[in-house]
């Protein structure tokens, strides 16, 4: 395993103060409330093409909310730009539809300032690995707590069939009429090498598996990344048939012998030819940025106990006289 940390991070106590103290007024009775029904979670009817794999991801997100009894005001759904990024409009909860490629830093701002919220980011392969590629790397290495589901369809759909960063070599698109020539990004390798602490792969044609991965991702304390194959029936039909038993393909789970904390093994798994394996490739415990920032705050707050904000500032001003 490559050396990515100089020293073991100190364990962060679970009681570290939140960046923002949670007011008690808004959700005082949460524990007694019933979970939401699908009807209460669904908002606009999706604008996706009939047969789009993204429907399945949305349905399973609803399932997750239902099953885990998450309430409207406890979650925030964020996306960038692209077909799949329309996601927040279809969810009846606080959400934001941000700009192309920048959903992750935006979601990070929510996560770091509001530890009381579950932050879910959704996007496509262009958003995640092309225009937003650098943000993906840095959000992963900082281990900012959130769940990021990339609905990978290997093509730009919203703009009607251009080559995407995950399009395989030879894929004929409007921008590569003779076939894609640029070596594609491997999202799993990218996530592992960038330092993501939870890396899983699933496909829209196996709903139970999608939900299983979403639950595991949500429960992971850190940046949890799921690559979910999601077929674009309009511009890349049949792309994932080889992974779909109903189309004569094979759906292979990650072998039971795989050690999810073994970075090299995970990387090797990620390098297998399509359809490869599905499941959790990599999962390690590493202090989140959220916890580290909270620890910094805790250390500083200890030095100003009992002082009001203006009194803390006054101390600085006294030194500037």
């Amino acid at each position: 395993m490559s050396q990515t940390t100089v020293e073991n991070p100190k364990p962060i106590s679970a009681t570290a103060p939140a960046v923002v103290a949670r007011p008690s007024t808004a959700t005082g009775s949460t524990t007694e409330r019933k979970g939401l029904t699908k009807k209460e979670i669904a908002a606009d009817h999706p604008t996706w093409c009939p047969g789009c794999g993204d429907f399945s991801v949305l349905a399973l997100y609803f399932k997750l909310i239902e099953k885990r009894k998450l309430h409207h005001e406890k979650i925030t759904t964020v996306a960038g730009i692209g077909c799949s990024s329309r996601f927040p409009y279809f969810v009846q909860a606080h959400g934001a539809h941000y700009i192309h490629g920048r959903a992750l830093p935006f979601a990070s701002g929510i996560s770091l300032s509001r530890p009381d919220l579950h932050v879910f980011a959704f996007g496509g392969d262009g958003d995640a690995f092309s225009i937003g590629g650098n943000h993906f790397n840095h959000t992963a290495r900082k281990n900012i707590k959130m769940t990021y589901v990339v609905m990978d369809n290997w093509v730009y759909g919203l703009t009607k069939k251009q080559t995407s960063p995950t399009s395989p070599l030879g894929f004929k698109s409007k921008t590569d009429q003779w076939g894609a020539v640029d070596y594609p990004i491997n999202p799993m390798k990218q996530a592992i090498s960038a330092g993501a602490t939870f890396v899983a792969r699933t496909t829209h044609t196996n709903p139970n598996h999608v939900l299983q991965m979403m639950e595991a991702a949500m429960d992971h304390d850190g940046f949890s990344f799921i690559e979910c194959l999601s077929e674009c029936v309009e511009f890349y039909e049949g792309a994932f048939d080889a992974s779909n038993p109903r189309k004569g393909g094979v759906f292979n789970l990650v072998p039971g012998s795989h050690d999810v904390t073994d970075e090299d093994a995970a990387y090797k798994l990620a390098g297998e030819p399509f359809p490869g394996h599905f499941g959790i490739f990599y999962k390690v415990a590493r202090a989140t940025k959220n916890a580290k920032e909270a620890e910094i705050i805790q250390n500083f707050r200890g030095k100003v106990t009992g002082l009001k904000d203006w009194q803390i500032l006054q101390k600085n001003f006294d030194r500037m006289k």
Partner: protein
Amino acid sequence: MSDSTLTAQTAGGTPKLTRVSEAVIRIAGNSQDGIQAIGGFLARLAGRSEQEVMTFMTIPSTISGGPSIFQVRIGSGEVLSAGDEADVLLAFYQHSYEGHIDSLKKGGIVMFDADHVEPKAEWQKDYHHVGIKISSLTVEAIGGTAKDKGKNIFSLGLIARMFDLNVPKLEKLVAERFTGKDPSIVKNALLAFHAGYGYSLGNVMETFRFMDSREREGVQVVMNGNEALAYGLIAAGVRFGAGYPITPWTDVMELLRRELPKYGGSFIQCEDEIASISMALGASYAGKLAVTGSSGPGISLKSEALGWAINAEVPLIVCDVQRGGPSTGMPTNIEQSDLFIACFGSHGDAPRVVLAPANVEDCFYTAIEAAQIANRYNVPVIILSDQAIATRIEAFPEPNLEQVCQDLAPDFTPVADHKPYDLAATDGIVKRAVPGTQILSGKYPIATGLEHDELGHPTGSPRLHQAMTAKRRKKLQALAANLPLPKIYGPPEGNALLVGWGSTEGPMREAVDRARAAGDSISSLTIRHLNPLPEGLENIFSGFHHVLVVENNDEGLYGYGGQLCMLLRARFCNSHIRGINKSDGLTWKVKDILERVKTHVAAAKQA
């Protein structure tokens, strides 16, 4: 040393003593010489002295270790600018001596390090030369292996002797500065200081004493503009920020990174400028009004996200500490050429608020005002500072922190129903319901950059796009109606009105003082609210024959003057509005402003 009055000349070789109302001292050396520390000590001394105020300006080097200068203006009265010409030049090296002798007024004193500087014969008659072996005397004073480290403190001693400064106060400042370090460092610093102070100026020169100034009320604090901006943001209640390092904004983010945790907040260093504004927007969207900042190149990168904030109506504070542009431009020089990107940058009809602090103190209060406006109007507010204000140190009356500090904690009280983009409000202002707020109707809002309906869901409706565009604009109109008119410096009627924004305020006011003393009827006006502009400026302009907009930007690119000039001409169609511009990367000299006014008025007469 203007207004100097000769009071005494003692016989017998002791230096003559002259009482002065102010003095400009320029210290030139290399950036590692600690010359900024000398300035820092002098500023702090002024802040602690009742009878002295001072302003300084720094021009830091472009590259670490390169030539650097620090100019200090000490005065018994009001000091508005860093001064046109130096009375005293302290030169550490040959390049400092040769490069800055021009900034010294004729008859001024050049003190130079005789270990490094070979004085030129042809300059002897114009300037009073005083050679002191500063480097070797420092080594001698401190001893050991000190080399010439400490020559800045030695020089501080020289200056203290020359201007009869308060030695116990300076000693205390020196001791405070090095407290916490090795005790021998404090000892060595004081040794160097006293060696400088005790160096016999003897027959070679005169010494000076500042005249008593009016009693100042209250306590003063001393800091530079970037510090004032950062502390202002803290006072404003901002508890989250994100940024990427770029000169001259970096100090602000460093300070916030260090200080915010004390208040339970965080400042995050991001991978790039776009991530910075995005992360700040995420926090703002989540109810924690956030700040991001940069200088010109970074502002360009942030522009798309800024448009999202405008369309999604999410509050945000964006600091732009301007430098010379375009592109990488002049990273450590002064320019006011980001007004247009601040007012109009990003695509589409994108109304936002732009504020420009006029001095160091104003940076503090502008930050507080920016937070109030952002939160009330759900709009990004850009604070346009500049290199001159950012690095300049000023003393100003200590703010009443208990009174001005704000708490911006979000309100999570459940609401019955919520339309984030409600079109019913005539002023376009809707109170936000941030994530975490329960909405009892079960209809939750989406913050979005797509044109949307009242709940934030996408729409292609021509009617809604027109209505939402108007809504976003109406908020700024409502703000404009509430803005105070800027105060005129000088009488409200006269021959010429100097109009400016940002760091030109000081030189403009000093120009007004000088012109009025000479019998010319000139006033000045500094506009702090640049977008939207306050209502009623046309009435102010109508009191003057000439409205001359003084700016540090190009004079020919925009028609009759610089960027603000173009905005005012376009807005008021007033042909008396003209520009006085320069783009040399330096602050305005008072005499240059006055000369340009004269030229303009004369040309207008001929026409």
